[in-house]
């Protein structure tokens, strides 16, 4: 067997493996991630009121497997930035993000988290949390309604569904 045919054979094998193992596995892994998004318990400002209502009985976020709020960030998947991040909070938010395990997702909840919102010209407010973190889903509103949170959650689920098993390794700051 010369080199070229063996290469073709290996290529076919990897194709078959991808077809029969990797793709279904990716579906299963992503399915698990979709229905088990645990958020970090981090309240940065007044949008946490609407987050409370979202995890309450009427909007019941646990239907999608999302817990109300989770204490330690070592087990969490989603960092929900609930409103304004100011200059005192920003380093802490970054630390919390760094302590979360991969894969992790960031939701910017409310106008302040997106762009500074009402406080765009304040001396102590970040102009949007995407200046320090990579944001996956933006939810507009001041504060966003719980329905909007659910819509954003479904958007995040669709994003995860199309993603790879092993995302690009994020290099941590020391």
């Amino acid at each position: 067997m010369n080199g070229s045919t063996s290469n073709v054979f290996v290529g076919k094998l990897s194709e078959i493996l991808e077809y029969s193992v990797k793709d279904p596995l990716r579906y299963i892994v992503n399915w698990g991630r979709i229905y088990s998004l645990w958020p970090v318990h981090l309240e940065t400002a007044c949008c946490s009121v609407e987050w409370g209502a979202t995890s309450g009985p009427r909007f019941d976020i646990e239907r999608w497997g999302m817990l109300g709020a989770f204490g330690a960030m070592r087990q969490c998947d989603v960092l929900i930035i609930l409103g304004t991040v100011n200059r005192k909070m920003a380093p802490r938010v970054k630390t919390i993000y760094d302590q979360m395990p991969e894969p992790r997702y960031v939701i910017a909840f409310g106008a302040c988290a997106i762009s500074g919102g009402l406080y765009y010209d304040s001396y102590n407010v970040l102009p949007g949390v995407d200046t320090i973190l990579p944001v996956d889903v933006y939810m507009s509103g001041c504060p966003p309604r719980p329905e909007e949170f659910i819509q954003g959650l479904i958007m995040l689920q669709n994003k995860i569904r199309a993603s790879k098993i092993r995302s690009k390794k994020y290099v941590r700051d020391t």
Partner: protein
Amino acid sequence: MSELTVSIGPQHPGAGHFRLIVKLDGDKIIEVNPDPGYVHRGEEKIAEYRNYIQNIPHFERPGIHDSSNMLFAYVQAVEGLMKLEVPERGKYIRVIMAELNRIISHLYYLAIYGIFVGHSTMFMWPMGDREHFIDLAQMISGQRVGFAFLLPGGVRNDMPEGVKTRANDACNYFEKRLIEYERIFMNNPIFENRTKGIGKLSKEDAINLGVVGPTLRASGVKADIRKDEPYAVYDKLDFDIPVSKDCDSWARAWIHIEEMRQSMSIIKQSLKDMPSGPVKLNLRGQVRAPPGEVFSRAEASRGTVSFYLVSNGDMNPYRIRLITPSFRNLIAIPHILKGLLLADIPPVFWSLDYWPVEADR
């Protein structure tokens, strides 16, 4: 020797956007240093760049689930400078919105109290019942939270049809529900163990530290701006100020439950007594305050909220000082937590109804 310093917050299930630096000896608290400022957004500075109408959404953001009460003091300050008299119907609608907000805020308080003592059902039930009152407020104002409903000179719009019956239904339902709350949550023996006699704030200390709101009334001081310095139509309405002499965490929670009862009675009375007529003054052009200063107070759900407004006749206020109830109660936290155990921090801390957003402004 065996001192341990733990910082509770800003990311902690028992603190939220706020930090307590706690020095522990074993399980006992030696010293507590509150470290607020994680939500400081410079409201007072921003207010100097905005005119009187633009400031309305800003001043409700600190206490967002208590927005009408926060604005009550602000619009009264502006009206005081401009010497406006609000139409009678507008005053009644203001009172209805303020009391709805009080119930919404108190239910939020109860819900988080549940989380802080480890009772998940106590979180869910008040959160669910809160939605009925949010629905009512949404019917009137069009928003879930942050209504921006009160304006200098009245309220933004009249109430739609059907609010009256729906409000009465909600109040009747919730009165029954409150009895259940007392039976299931307040009289639970473990809950009583955790809160009765814990976190005492004596009457003298409460007065000296200048705390406000339910915290003050739970320490046996009968003080409420609605009675002491009646504004809007509160002097025409019949209601009680619940006062407790127990001074502990349980009493503070109980005051909140009693206040919700009184609020529902106020809403029912106002809906009955409300005259017809306009709801706001027709203020053509800009709202501009003449030079002068005014100190205005209102009783929000967490306590007295005050605005000190200094104007030099400009479009924008010269200086606005906003004193929120949580900022006044901040001083009580290190005082009250001293000598307790680590496990007491969440229930005692939350029993003061300290809302960091409101304190930091």
